[in-house]
């Protein structure tokens, strides 16, 4: 629970912290567009290299970004295997027969259950998962003993492989970029920046200040609510709720015992927050003066120019290559 990085700010003092939040938000949007402009895997790899470079210069540890990616691991693996299995364009790279025989099917089932029971003990769960998957595949490919029930084909096409890596890399880059933004920007600064970036929408009578406030408060309360959820889990565990085990009927009860206090506490917190804001004379929609104002520096101009260069490069690559 505590490993969720989304929305967490971690203090630091690299140049990424000194850039104006407006610049960071605009640059994030520009870079995302640039990433979506890219067409081939090689450019995407180059993009990943640049992101790595950015992390290195910005002194952000890769481990932290990885923690931010971990909740998306399932999605990443899913899109990856989907592309590999079902994309049938390009040249055929691998074409092997899978033997579903009376021997291999029980073997696979045995392997699966072995994985189910041993995965709790193993430290490197992801690595272990890949290991088991490759073990299952090799059993299917190489063991052709016994009465054959069915035969399947595992065909991998060059385009499929390329697209699989391509889409996975694109997801990783986008999530990394947004993680960099939230890691290096204080929620208050993010709020200021968003408000300022959204200002043009005022022409369409959109209340940008309120939107920015809503976003900022939501971001601010993610870690708080996670802590609360953790405390509730401990309190209910003290009353015999076993969150790891139980039948379906018990599971429902477990979730209810978590959600009800969670809702009550959230309502209470928002009520308290509203009171605290009102006590400090906050009126929604009214113009407010600020303690901190945003300053545009030469660093911002440089950063934004680099972002634009990246965008134009990827547009050029799309048109000419």
């Amino acid at each position, binding site marked *: 629970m505590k490993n969720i990085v989304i929305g967490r700010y971690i203090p630091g003092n690299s140049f990424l912290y000194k850039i104006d939040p407006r610049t960071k938000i605009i640059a994030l949007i520009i870079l995302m567009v640039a990433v979506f402009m890219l067409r081939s895997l090689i450019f995407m790899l180059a993009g990943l290299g640049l992101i790595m470079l950015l992390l290195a210069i910005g002194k952000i540890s890769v481990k932290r970004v990885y923690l931010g990616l971990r909740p998306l691991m399932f999605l990443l693996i899913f899109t990856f295997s989907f592309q590999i299995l079902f994309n049938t364009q390009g040249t055929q790279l691998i074409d092997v027969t899978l033997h579903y025989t009376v021997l291999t099917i029980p073997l696979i089932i045995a392997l699966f259950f072995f994985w189910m029971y041993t995965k*709790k*003990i193993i430290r490197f769960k992801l690595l272990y998962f890949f290991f088991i998957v490759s073990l299952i595949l090799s059993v299917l490919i190489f063991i052709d003993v016994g009465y054959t029930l069915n035969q399947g084909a595992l065909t991998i096409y060059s385009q499929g492989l390329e697209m699989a890596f391509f889409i996975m890399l694109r997801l990783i880059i986008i999530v990394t970029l947004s993680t960099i933004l939230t890691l290096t920007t204080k929620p208050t600064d993010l709020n200021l920046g968003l408000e300022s970036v959204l200002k043009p929408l005022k022409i369409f009578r959109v209340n940008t200040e309120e939107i920015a406030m809503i976003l900022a408060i939501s971001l601010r309360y993610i870690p708080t609510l996670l802590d609360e959820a953790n405390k*509730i889990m401990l309190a209910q565990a003290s009353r015999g709720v076993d969150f790891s085990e139980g039948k379906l009927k018990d599971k429902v009860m477990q979730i209810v015992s978590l959600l009800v206090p969670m809702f*009550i506490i959230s309502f209470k917190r928002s009520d308290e927050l509203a009171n605290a804001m009102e006590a400090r004379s906050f009126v929604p929609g009214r113009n407010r003066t600020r303690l901190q104002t945003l300053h545009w520096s030469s660093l911002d101009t440089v950063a934004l120019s680099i972002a634009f260069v990246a965008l134009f490069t990827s547009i050029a690559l799309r048109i000419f290559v």
Partner: protein
Amino acid sequence: MGIKFKRVEFKYQGFDEKGYLALSNINLTIKPQGEFITLIGETGSGKTTLVQHMNALLTPTSGEMDILGAIINQETIRKKSVKLNPIRQKVGLVFQFPEYQLFEETVEKDIIFGPKNYGVSETEAIQRAKELIKVVGLNESYLSRSPFNLSGGEKKRVSIAGILAMNPDILILDEPTSGLDPMGRDELLKVFFDIHQRLGKTVIIITHDMNTVFHYAKRVLVMRDSYLVYDGDPMNLFTKKNIEHWNLDIPDILKLTYQIEERLDVTFPTRPRNKEALLEMLKELEA
């Protein structure tokens, strides 16, 4: 048996790699029966973390716990070789904030939630709820009310009843009397002391009230900066130790005794633990 801490250390994992050290080198043995312990210390000194180890809610980062024969350390938790749920029935822990546990439609349902999780029949659990609601100082009419419409003190009492209903062998209370009026506080403390005396159970109370410590406790634990700095007799703590250093205060009855000694220019042979004892000593002095 009982609860044993062996060189227990606990770190809250933060985002900086260091983490926050909440317990360091705790060695402690608590008997399964007949103890009445108070746990004191400044806020943030690790009291709550310590008691959350006692029913295996938290696992020591290093070191080992022995809770009623079950060994809890990183290894046994990772391998899932210990069953944690039975431990939590035997060692009941009441949290500081009742909001974290109340969730049912009625107080009665909330009180029977714990025992039902441990396989107590519904009728039996309801029977317990009816008794316990009186024990914690409310009446049966509360059983049909919603726990969310109660006052802070009433919620607290309901949450205590919810743990008592599980009939734990060892009862741990995290600041059970915070947010209660003085009368209610004394009433509840008497309840806990009664549970301890009548049933011989071990009771552990976290408190900031030195009078509670001095009046009831047979043994007092003092936490400071993640270390257990004192484990022993409360009389010895308040009369001999330099407790201002630990941000603790002297109990009222001792303050009064010291003032009387100063004003009357006498020295009492012993230190009184409650009003009655002080009165007794004054009568003796008069005679």
